């Protein structure tokens, strides 16, 4: 039989087992053999989402609304698919910035703001305390019911149970002890509690087993499987409507809003943040957890409808609260052991939630509410105390007790009036208020602190008005008229039908208005305010977290410096000597800093210390503490210049890149052009080589075939052979010259030269040309030309090229070439002017390029390789001069070049 003693024995025995598991987990963590570091434990710990609300309340909800319980579990499934995107990002950010609570997350994102941290904490406390009380209520109620075994009696009002006779009170106390023992044993920069996670995972397993057991019992023992229950339910007038969703207006909207709400809840409930983010050991665990966790939810929900319908049909009438079916059905069948298992399962569900939620809340209360205030109170002189870790731990422990007592008080005073599900939904709606600030914070850099603050506060106010005020009315603290007629008789302000919106249910109505107002204020105010400097930095670090994943210490915000001694003593006050030494040594090793040698800590180290502290006391407080030892230098002119300079460099760099790209493009174009020219050149050169070769060969063949040819003809033919061979060798020489200059293999012979002599030599060499075409030559040289330095043969080649070029384009018998040399202090300028056909503007530009030949409309291609001017240009440039042409079509051209008079450096 199931006496009260047995029940108490098993309850406390179970809790004792939890202590043992947590102790075991902690011990293993200490020796470095983590038992929680695998995706299965991680997924099970995520299942802390399923509380007593799931365990008892789902059935209650299903008994009155059919599928209405489901959105609460479909939301998390949808989030799990998004988990890779959203959760992983939050996870990464939290790990890098050592964020340990949701309040810290928001505060840190919006410039480590103390105000924001406290607002979030207050909302969380208001939102979660009723939820905790709901768990206590479930424990208390289930104990009351099971202790009546084998009779099922339902407590009418919990206020009637005497204070000290109430199991919930003792359970609350034991949970406080458990949480203090395993949640605040010592201060860790990571705030991970492996023992606790192990216990939570175990609890998740127990509640699943218990629920499945009762589900199988009802479905296959009381009834003959799913089909049997549903077909019987169909013939039950009370249950038949539940088989479909009602077609009333707003039903689907409610459904949709509930899914949205549970999505927000599973991400932003403090306890979910605690297990999913803070207690996460390895990011990769998310990989499996995103399907394990939804699978868990599916499993625990399969039997909800059968139990609900089975219960309604079994008890009929409604004497028994549907919230208790899970427990009362086995009891009604006299299955004591099963009832006990269910009771233990219920305790698992409830205690798991209470423990994790309390830890999460106590961290927030301590780090974001109490510590910032205490550190700022001047008379406490807390910032100067030598050991603060005890202060922090005491505050944590105090807030754990306070939260649990608050939860208990709420349960005694108000909790009795509500069903499990509606209290849970009120909490969900409260934490949904964090959504705009967090989601906006990690995907949108422009979100500002003012925007987040306005959104949170207004959302919270609407939440209070639409959900909390009515609950106070229901509990009798406020006049009923407020709900039925609206405040001051204004119907548009009725808390359940704001502005006449009536199609939604209570929660959906509140969620819709609060989220609308929240998001509007967040976005609107953000767009009209400017983020401060820290906000700006943090926004970038959060939104672009994957880019800054590596070492964020260097992207520091601290400009000031501090002595290492100061930092060390600061850390010691919170972490103790041993841990401080470890942390600093680790940092020093990583950055190759000799702690004994250096006195001053650089900005990176200050930043690292701030992060270590942030893990312990929250980012806002950490900033205050670090500020107390860091001498932050005012932003001097130099630093402003540095910042500007950096920006300028970035801009300059990008310009450089643009230029380089443009240059590359031009070079590419040029290469293509050269390639084309080379092809042309090869065809030209081979053509030019073939013409003399062909004539030499054909004449040689004639001579060979006609040995008796007469003398005159013979001389004539051999003269042509000589001439053509000369032309051949000239061509080949040019190609070779060009090749030599191009590759730098040219052997330059520099000496002091008389330029007059060079002109004379060149004219002698070209004499036959003038005679052939009857061209007049004039020389216009100064009396004295000083000696210049240069390669004689090459300069003669330049002159010969220019003169023969000029001669080539002169009309027979009318040609006139003038060679002018002018002197100025710097250089010698040589002009070779002709009265030939001239060169068009377009051609003037390309005439000096390699392999260029100017095709003439009537004359066709001129003779030559097209290399003459290119070689000339290179020789002139090698001597330090430049060459150009002035010309007009039909009137002749003037080629000019300069040679510097000073001795120039010979480039070899």
């Amino acid at each position, binding site marked *: 039989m199931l006496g009260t003693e047995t029940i108490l024995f098993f309850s406390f025995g179970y809790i004792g087992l939890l202590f043992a598991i947590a102790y075991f987990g902690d011990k293993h963590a200490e020796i470095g053999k983590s038992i929680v570091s695998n995706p299965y434990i991680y997924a099970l710990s995520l299942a802390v989402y399923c509380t007593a609300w799931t365990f008892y309340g789902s059935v209650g909800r299903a008994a009155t609304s059919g*599928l209405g319980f*489901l*959105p609460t579990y*479909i939301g998390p*499934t*949808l989030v*799990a*698919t*998004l*988990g*890779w*995107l959203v959760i992983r990002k939050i996870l990464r950010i939290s*790990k890098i910035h050592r964020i340990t609570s949701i309040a810290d997350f928001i505060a840190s994102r919006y410039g480590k703001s103390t105000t924001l941290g406290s607002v979030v904490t207050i909302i969380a406390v208001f939102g979660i305390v009723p939820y905790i009380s709901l768990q206590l209520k479930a424990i208390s109620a289930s104990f009351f019911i099971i202790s009546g075994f084998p009779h099922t009696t339902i407590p009418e009002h919990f206020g009637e149970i005497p204070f000290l006779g109430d199991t919930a009170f003792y359970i609350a106390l034991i949970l406080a002890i458990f949480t203090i023992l395993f949640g605040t044993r010592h201060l860790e920069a990571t705030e991970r509690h492996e023992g606790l996670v192990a216990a939570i995972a175990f609890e998740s397993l127990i509640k699943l087993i218990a629920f499945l057991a009762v589900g199988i019992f009802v479905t296959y023992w009381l009834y003959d*499987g*799913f*089909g*049997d229950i*549903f*077909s019987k339910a*169909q013939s039950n007038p009370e249950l038949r409507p539940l*088989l*479909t*969703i009602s*077609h009333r207006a707003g039903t*689907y*909207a409610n*459904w*949709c809003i509930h*899914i949205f709400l549970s999505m927000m809840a599973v991400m932003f409930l403090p306890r979910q943040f605690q297990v999913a983010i803070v207690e996460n050991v390895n*990011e*990769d665990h998310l*990989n*499996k957890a*995103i*399907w394990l966790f*939804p*699978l868990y939810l*599916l499993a625990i929900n*399969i039997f909800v*409808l059968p139990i609900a319908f089975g219960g309604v049909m079994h008890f009929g009438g409604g004497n028994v609260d549907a919230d208790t079916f899970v427990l009362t059905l086995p009891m009604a069948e006299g299955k004591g052991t099963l009832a006990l298992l269910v009771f233990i399962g219920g305790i698992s569900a409830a205690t798991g939630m209470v423990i994790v939620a309390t830890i999460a809340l106590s961290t927030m209360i301590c780090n974001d509410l109490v510590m910032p205030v205490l550190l700022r109170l001047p008379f406490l002189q807390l910032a100067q105390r030598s050991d603060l870790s005890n202060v922090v731990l005491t505050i944590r422990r105090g807030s754990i007790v306070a939260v649990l007592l608050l939860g208990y008080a709420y349960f005694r005073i108000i909790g009795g009036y509500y069903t499990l599900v509606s209290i849970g939904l009120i909490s969900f709606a409260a934490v949904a208020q964090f959504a705009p600030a967090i989601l906006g914070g990690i995907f949108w850099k422009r979100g500002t602190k003012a925007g987040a603050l306005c959104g949170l506060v207004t959302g919270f106010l609407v939440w209070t008005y639409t959900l909390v005020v009515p609950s106070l009315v229901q509990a009798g603290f406020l006049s009923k008229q407020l709900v039925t007629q609206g405040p001051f008789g204004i119907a548009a302000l009725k808390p359940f039908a704001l502005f006449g919106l009536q199609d939604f249910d209570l929660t959906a109505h509140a969620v819709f208005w609060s989220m609308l107002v929240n998001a509007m204020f967040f976005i609107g105010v953000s767009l009209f305010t400017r983020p401060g400097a820290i906000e700006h930095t943090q926004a970038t670090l959060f939104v672009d977290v*994957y*880019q800054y*994943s*590596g070492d964020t210490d260097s992207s520091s915000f601290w400009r000031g410096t501090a002595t290492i001694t100061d930092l060390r003593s600061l850390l010691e006050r919170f972490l103790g000597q041993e841990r401080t030494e470890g942390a600093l040594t680790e940092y020093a090793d990583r950055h190759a800093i000799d702690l004994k040698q250096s006195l001053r800590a650089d900005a990176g180290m200050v930043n690292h210390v701030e992060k270590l502290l942030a893990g312990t006391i929250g980012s806002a407080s950490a900033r205050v503490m670090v500020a107390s030892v860091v001498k932050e230098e005012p932003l001097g002119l130099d630093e402003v210049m540095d910042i500007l300079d950096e920006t300028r460099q970035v801009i300059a760099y990008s310009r450089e890149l643009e230029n380089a790209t443009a240059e590359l493009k031009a070079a590419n174009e040029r290469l293509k052009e050269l390639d084309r020219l080379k092809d042309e050149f090869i065809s030209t050169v081979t053509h030019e080589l073939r013409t003399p070769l062909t004539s030499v060969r054909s004449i040689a063949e004639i001579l060979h075939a006609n040995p008796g040819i007469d003398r005159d003809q013979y001389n004539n033919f051999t003269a042509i052979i000589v001439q053509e061979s000369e032309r051949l060798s000239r061509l080949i020489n040019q190609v070779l010259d060009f090749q030599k200059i191009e590759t730098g293999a040219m052997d330059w012979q520099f000496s002091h030269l008389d330029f007059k002599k060079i002109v004379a030599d060149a004219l002698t060499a070209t004499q036959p040309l003038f005679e052939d075409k009857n061209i007049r030559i004039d020389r216009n040289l100064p009396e004295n030309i000083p000696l210049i330095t240069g390669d004689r043969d090459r300069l003669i080649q330049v002159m010969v090229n220019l003169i023969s070029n000029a001669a080539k384009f002169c009309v027979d018998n009318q040609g006139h070439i003038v060679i002018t040399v002018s002197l100025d202090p710097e250089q010698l300028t040589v002009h070779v002017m002709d009265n030939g056909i001239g060169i068009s503007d377009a051609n003037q530009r390309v005439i000096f390029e390699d392999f260029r030949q100017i095709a003439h409309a009537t004359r066709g291609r001129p003779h030559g390789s097209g290399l003459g001017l290119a070689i000339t240009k290179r020789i002139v440039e090698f001597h330090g001069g430049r060459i150009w042409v002035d010309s007009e079509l039909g009137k002749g051209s003037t080629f000019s070049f300069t040679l510097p008079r000073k001795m120039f450096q010979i480039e070899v």
Partner: protein
Amino acid sequence: MTPDSLLNKRLVGLFLLGVVLFNYPIISLFNLDVFWFGIPALYLYAFAAWFLLIVLVVIITKFNTKNVHLPRSASKPE
């Protein structure tokens, strides 16, 4: 495109599928007063769609981890 961002996109696609499957009007198509395999159509649909979604997550993540090694703590900026 890194394999990682491909996984991201697949999961976001799955999320959108889930949103469609569990919302009006698709869900209203199954809001019928009939039984399939002895189970009300709506219930069967809800749980089947839910299970399908989970199976798809498994397939997508399994497929992904088989081919690429996921970055552990530091992903390089792209």
